């Protein structure tokens, strides 16, 4: 029986999640330890630690492992841990892989984390099928819905807006004003889309040089910023300056050199670094932190709308997994039934041949006739069993067949 024992950001505080977090190499060790004679995968991210187990006593072993990792007592753990089995566990993993259980719906990182956990796990028929199908469901949701298309953070919103102006950012030149963490995050987002961070300006020059070196750019003084505007496409500003660092007149003076090329400016500072009147200039687009947060809010609302479509896809995949599991219960019963019938037929045929003294041709005719009788008799029960496997009663039917025909009793 497939069993899931886990804790996640839904109900478990970060202090506990931190303790329960298992880095990938240790997750592989834990999976080997928990698998014993069965199967085990440990999926651990900053938002969740989940153990997927197949085998004897899986729930107790999973619970004990989580208690050991989190340092919580049984009672404390009982209030935050969730346990799911069979179809419920499968549906949960499919939702996780699709990003539907993430803090930001549709976030893309989780799919890679599910794949890594799968590859580090000890898998057999059930978990192999389960995780492959989860990865398929995750990809399908991202391909068939727009859940992952829009930006989910201020820095990615800035980069996405720059793409809406310039298209591919390959070759786009970026000027960073400020060398703090926020500027770096936005720079990384832009660089990940192909932009080049060519200048970093900062009051403390050594910090500018340090950050510029990480992006293979050039550190400059704040006073040099206006003179560099002609040669860049995107400006990102996030300093702690109390007043404007760049005024409309300074940008306007650089427009002649730009020959109509658009200039996209992102002001992440509070108070703002860039004169809002810059936005009024032709081909200049200035977005401040409030504008970017509005874009993120709209995009998250869009993601939630898409989540309904994603849920339908995930439910379909869960149903396919349920059918597969049910067929696993029925197929051995069908095989046993046919083997038993064949065994009886060949035994009776051998006895009759000795008694009746049949010639070769007569024996062949009787052989063919008995095979046809067995096939015809078993055809309908086989079809009905397969139909039952597609429904909810596959296991019950399989058990009934085993009982009625005494399959496996002679062992």
């Amino acid at each position, binding site marked *: 029986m497939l069993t899931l024992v886990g804790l996640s950001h839904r109900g478990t505080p970060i202090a506990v999640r931190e303790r329960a977090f298992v880095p990938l190499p240790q997750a592989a060790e834990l999976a080997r330890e928990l698998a014993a004679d069965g199967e085990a995968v440990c999926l651990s991210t900053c938002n969740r630690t989940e153990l997927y187990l197949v085998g004897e006593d899986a729930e107790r072993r999973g619970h004990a492992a989580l208690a050991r990792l989190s340092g919580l007592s049984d009672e404390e753990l009982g209030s935050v841990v969730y346990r799911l089995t069979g179809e419920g566990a499968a549906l949960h993993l499919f939702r996780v892989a699709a990003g539907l259980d993430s803090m930001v719906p549709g976030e893309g990182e989780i799919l890679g984390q599910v794949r890594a956990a799968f590859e580090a796990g000890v898998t057999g028929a059930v978990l192999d099928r389960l995780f492959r199908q989860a990865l398929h469901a995750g990809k399908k949701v991202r391909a068939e819905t*727009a859940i992952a298309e*829009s930006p989910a953070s201020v820095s990615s919103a800035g980069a996405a807006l720059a793409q*809406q*102006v310039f298209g591919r950012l390959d070759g786009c030149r970026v000027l960073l004003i400020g060398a703090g963490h926020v500027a770096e995050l936005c720079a990384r987002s832009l660089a990940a889309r192909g932009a080049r961070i060519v200048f970093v300006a900062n009051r403390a020059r050594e910090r500018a040089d340090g950050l510029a070196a990480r992006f293979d750019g050039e550190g400059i003084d704040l006073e040099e910023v206006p003179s560099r505007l002609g040669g860049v496409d995107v400006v990102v500003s996030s300093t702690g300056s109390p007043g404007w660092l760049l005024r409309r007149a300074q940008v306007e003076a650089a427009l002649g050199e730009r020959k*109509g090329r658009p200039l996209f400016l992102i002001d992440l500072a509070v108070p703002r670094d860039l004169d809002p009147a810059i936005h009024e200039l*032709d081909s200049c687009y200035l977005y401040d932190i409030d504008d970017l947060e509005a874009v993120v809010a709209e995009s998250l609302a869009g993601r939630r709308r898409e989540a309904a479509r994603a849920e339908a896809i995930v439910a379909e995949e869960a149903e396919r997994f349920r059918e597969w599991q049910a067929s696993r219960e029925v197929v051995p019963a069908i095989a046993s039934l046919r083997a038993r019938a064949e065994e009886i037929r060949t035994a009776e045929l051998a006895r009759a041949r000795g008694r009746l003294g049949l010639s070769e041709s007569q024996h062949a005719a009787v052989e063919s006739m008995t095979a046809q009788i067995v096939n015809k008799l078993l055809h309908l029960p086989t079809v009905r069993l397969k139909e039952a496997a597609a429904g909810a009663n596959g296991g019950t039917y399989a058990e009934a067949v085993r009982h009625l025909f005494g399959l496996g009793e002679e062992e």
Partner: protein
Amino acid sequence: MVELLFWPALVAYGEAALAYAGDARRPGGAGRLATWGVRLGWLLQTGLLVVQAARADGFPWGTWAGSLNLFVWLVVSVYLVWGCRSRFRLLGLAVMPLAAALLVLARVGGGTGDAGRSHYSTAFLVLHVGLVSFAFAAFTLSAGLSALYLWQERRLKGRRAGGLLGRAPSLVTLESIAGRTIAVALPALTIGIVAGLVRVSDQGTAFDALMVVTLVTWLVYAAYVVLRFEVGWRGRRVAYLALAGFALVIVARLGLQLSHFS
């Protein structure tokens, strides 16, 4: 045979127009249906033009309605060059209803059936009507791209870009494709006009209003090419210029051609 191709082509274009509207409301499957509608409709209309050409004695689209039929096919052909990409679906929302409506107009005018014998030479009609129609089709598409540019630019200026992300081509892409389309179409228009002027000169016929408007259209697009590629104009100014040129294309294409080939 002509009927068997015309109606399915019209239905496919209509389906594409409706599906593009559906895709604008909720992106996804409707957009793919729209793309297939455009492809299928274009194939069927291509078949229609082939049948018309096979049956005709000479160039079959020399009449006002016939050239409109050819114009619709050229518009859809130029759109298909890049229109199947998902980011250009908003452009399809403008192009396909126009294509469907003009195809109906071409049919009402008798331009989708068998063509009569024209007293103009086939070579002249191919050179003049064919090239001018191609240029006008390209200008139509560049006007659509420029309109999309202005709409998107307004949204970016209005800081209402959230719903836009990933759904429309970037400003730079729109401007670049519109510019290149006009740069390719202008030589075709030039040759088409020269062919017409040579004939006017040979026959000694007088200038009519369509000729004047076409020459002014040429001047506007020539100015576009010079200002965009030589002077370095970008952004809204060139987009408005492309739309001004398109206004003249509408006048020339729909308002004045009725009497031109009579």
